[in-house]
């Protein structure tokens, strides 16, 4: 069975600075996808970024980028130029051959003005 671990329950960052959220996972599969989801306060969870395991190049979406280290089973999320609207719970998730999402416990990120 796959597991996803987010070791930082809470983090904070100053507006305009950069922050990195950690995620590690465990799987015996070779082909899979990794995701970061964001859930702002009292709002729906939305997909931030997705990484295919067979791609060596790290995914990037505007201010969001990942550092995918397949051998180390690590998948961290970097948020550059943090904005107040980035305040949210961030979930790391794994999808393997069964197409089910396996989530970590989440990291609550607060962006301070």
């Amino acid at each position, binding site marked *: 069975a796959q597991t996803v671990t987010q070791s930082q329950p809470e983090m904070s960052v100053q507006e305009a600075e950069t922050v990195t959220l950690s995620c590690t996972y465990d799987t015996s599969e070779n082909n899979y996808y990794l995701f970061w989801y964001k859930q702002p306060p009292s709002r729906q969870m*939305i997909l931030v970024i997705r990484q295919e395991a067979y791609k060596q190049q790290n995914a990037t979406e505007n201010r969001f980028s990942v550092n995918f280290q397949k051998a180390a089973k690590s998948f961290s999320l970097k948020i550059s130029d943090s904005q107040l609207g980035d305040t949210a719970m961030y979930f790391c998730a794994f999808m393997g051959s069964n197409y*089910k999402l*396996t989530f970590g416990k989440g990291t609550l990120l607060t962006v301070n003005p």
Partner: protein
Amino acid sequence: EAGVTQFPSHSVIEKGQTVTLRCDPISGHDNLYWYRRVMGKEIKFLLHFVKESKQDESGMPNNRFLAERTGGTYSTLKVQPAELEDSGVYFCASSQVRGYVAEQFFGPGTRLTVL
């Protein structure tokens, strides 16, 4: 385009009572998923519908939980009788197709409290 909607947003019931949660997926999405987050723990998969058929219900905790998706549109998740450990946030998600490339769109969740 309307997103995934869930009703109610909150439900407070007593142990032993019955509660029914509803999820309306995005129109045209054949795949519908239920997840649950118990306080302080990970979001866990419950089950997956493809149209009206249960594709995978391996995450359903026990037979007190019954999910249906009549006509392949909206879905209901009934808990009968509810127990204290059923408290948590129940999320519904839908996707157009199944697989890695299919983004799952999540609803806002239903917060269930069993007293």
